């Protein structure tokens, strides 16, 4: 307990230290606020402009979560398909890798063409950004079942579905949750890209407008909001992960949250 507490205090100190060093560096080297605002300015902007920033925050969070949810659903389905069928593996994997190599910013205009500017392209961009790690991890988790365990199951005349639900999916859970933590941050990236290119709402759009009027502290305030949202969601998923798949970590480990 005291060890966990000390670990937490240490990490808090380092994070606060980071902002202090940043602040001091700006003061000592006389860095202009248009180049790099001081953290205190950023926080001040965040505080003063909160009423203006808030709706954008809600919009970005909403878009990200919807896109992420769609990403999870389609990612798990695709992962199960690829992980349990030879043919799907052979055809699906190359397609997936090809698709994920495309810069997503190039895809946004296509979504805009199809669905018009606004929330839908942002949701879809968040979805495809978060898709790839989920598919790969679920498929990997399914594919790593020990052959002997499979023999035990087959000797019991277990059906493919029996094996999937009793062995495959539980075994894939740690991989799945590891991918969720990565994917949720990618979903944010996707949302912000789309908002920057083609939306009149959201933190991405806010930062676009702020930077075109050289309001650099507001740009940084937007970045800070994104970082906080990302950390918050990461922490939530770590917590769920700890609850659901504690078995994969064995004994006690304070973990992230």
């Amino acid at each position, binding site marked *: 307990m005291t060890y966990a507490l000390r670990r937490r205090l240490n990490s808090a100190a380092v994070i606060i230290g980071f902002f202090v060093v940043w602040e001091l560096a700006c003061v000592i080297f006389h860095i202009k606020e248009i180049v790099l605002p001081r953290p205190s300015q950023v926080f001040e902007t965040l505080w003063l402009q909160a009423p203006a920033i808030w709706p954008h925050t809600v919009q970005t969070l909403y878009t990200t979560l919807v896109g992420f949810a769609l990403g999870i659903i389609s990612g798990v389905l695709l992962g199960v398909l690829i992980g349990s069928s030879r043919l799907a593996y052979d055809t699906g994997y190359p397609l997936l890798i090809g698709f994920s190599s495309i810069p997503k910013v190039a895809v946004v205009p296509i979504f805009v063409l199809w669905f018009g500017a606004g929330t839908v392209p942002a949701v879809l961009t968040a979805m495809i950004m978060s898709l790839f790690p989920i598919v790969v991890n679920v498929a990997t988790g399914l594919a790593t079942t020990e052959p*002997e*365990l499979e*023999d*035990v199951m087959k*000797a019991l005349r277990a059906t493919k579905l*029996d094996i999937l639900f*009793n062995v495959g999916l539980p075994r894939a859970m740690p991989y799945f949750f590891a991918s969720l933590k990565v994917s949720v941050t990618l979903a944010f990236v996707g949302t912000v890209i789309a908002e920057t290119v083609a939306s009149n709402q959201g933190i991405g759009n806010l930062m676009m407008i702020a930077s075109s009027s050289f309001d650099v502290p507001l740009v940084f305030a937007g970045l800070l909001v994104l970082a906080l949202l990302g950390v918050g969601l990461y922490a939530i998923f770590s917590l769920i992960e700890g609850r659901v798949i504690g078995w994969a970590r064995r004994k006690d480990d304070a973990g992230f949250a």
Partner: protein
Amino acid sequence: MNEDAPPFVHLQDVRLTYGHGDRTVEALGTTNLKVGKGDFVALVGPSGCGKSTILKLVTGLIPASAGWVFVAQREVGAEPVRVGMAFQNPTLLPWLTIRQNVMLPLKIVPPFRQQYRAKKKTEFRDRADALLEQVGLAGFGDKFPWQLSGGMLQRASLCRALIHDPQLLMLDEPFGALDQFTREELWAILQDLWLTRRPTVLLVTHDLKEAGYLANRVCVMRARPGRIVEDCAVDFVRPRTIEMTYEPGFVSLTQRLRELIVSARAPDAAVESAA
């Protein structure tokens, strides 16, 4: 065993070749084996001689390349025979407790499968606990696999192989990774389980003492291609004990088995005289 009763397991002129094209391995040459219902047969031989392959054939995990595999007078796969399997690696599921692991077959095998929802909290649970107690794991039902030692995991794995009252029990070097004392303890437990439940057992082992202690028959195999070269009856009285393994009769059996295996490993000429 009754000589006239039809065999429960019957391999008739079975051959098995792995792979296809020009990269084939002839794992089993023409092999014949009959095992009576409730019998206990051990398969011994150098590694790669096809012992695991025989188990897989009898379980229907792989089809024979030639010949027939019958279980309970029906071609394997067609018959609704319950099978239990255990390997050297206990392969328990790490996210389930020991009891849940043991109960896994009940979730899958009919007729238990249909009753699983209703009975898993009461009858099936008691059944698992009774079996765990029989192998010396009373009170460990709620533990997770990582909390148990290798010997304990192997006991649990035996329970999982037996919980659904299999007619056929397939054991592939189940005690191979354990120390001598744990191994001997588990021999006694397995003998008990066999005497009370009487499944038909095929046991693959490297340990000749283990084969002599547990089995009614020991089949010695040789490799390339795999085949059975000798079938020794073992008729010491049951229940057998560790002390018995030091008696002259037992020692001369294991010595004979050892010679058979050594000659099976040697170049062909020596083998033909043994076979």
